[in-house]
């Protein structure tokens, strides 16, 4: 197994796990889905495919960050600013 990629995969998993703590549906729910998603691809050997999957994981990280930001922004906007009706 390509060694640097192994590190990449672990890094990705740890980062996603950390992000998942704030997931709206609960950290446990997130962890289960995360684990099964990684387990599904555990026998992947092709380094190109692994890189693509890791890139997809990085994309998910960006999506989660955007989700968290929007949730917070919308909550603050609703609480502190007049809604224009």
């Amino acid at each position, binding site marked *: 197994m390509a060694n640097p990629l192994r590190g990449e995969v672990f890094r990705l998993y740890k980062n996603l796990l*950390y*992000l998942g703590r704030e997931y709206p549906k609960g950290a446990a729910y997130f962890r289960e889905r995360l684990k099964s998603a990684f387990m599904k691809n555990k026998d992947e050997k092709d380094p190109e495919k692994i890189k693509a999957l890791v890139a997809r994981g990085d994309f998910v990280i960006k999506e989660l960050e955007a989700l968290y930001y929007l*949730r917070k922004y919308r909550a603050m906007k609703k609480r502190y600013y007049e809604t224009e009706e």
Partner: protein
Amino acid sequence: MSGRVLVGVKRVIDYAVKIRVKPDNSGVVTDGVKHSMNPFCEIAVEEAVKLKEKKLIKEVVAVSCGPQQAQETIRTALAMGADRGIHVEVTGKDYDTLGPLQVSKILAALAKKEEAQLVILGKQAIDDDCNQTGQMTAALLDWPQGTFASEVALENDKVKVVREIDGGLETIKISTPAVLTADLRLNTPRYATLPNIMKAKKKKIANVKPADLGVELTSRMLGKYRGVTGKRKERATQQSRVEEWTILPNIHRTIL
């Protein structure tokens, strides 16, 4: 100019948590409740870090006042890009009565000590909604203030601030050193990701006591009343507001 920016960050109950009042009405349940950095403080930190990335300022110092746990909030600021932190230790009864007046005295003393060019704060905290600390800090320092900033542009030794006011937007130009308070639309704060938090562990957090800064934390409040008001909305879920009324003595002059 020193090129140093002081950013005040406050540890508050997380915005997404449902607030519960203690059964004896003595306060809000905080034990075991998720806390995080005040959202407006995040925006303040982001603005300071952005200024540093644009090379307009040299150092970002994150400050927080409170017990040991305040250090977590400083760590988040460090993970977002602040260079070092200052933890002003306030515990027990002093912490219970810690309000904008005391914090602004602390921040003013630190701003002078650190020779800050800018002090950036969030416009208000989501737990007490005072919206006073920035303004009081500026008054104590006799510095100009750009509050409710939705745009900040540093031009040499002047700052152009676009403020969100009731009538719309107002643009002012103030000289530095100055105090700015961040409004919601100032920027999009970056997330403190795990790798950044790991890197931030190497950054220093200095420990300071208010007495070291020559600040007295005596509170002017006579008491606090807490109650819960309920409002049932026709179509949505029941909403209740926790109200805290601060009873202040009748002082006609300045409260300094």
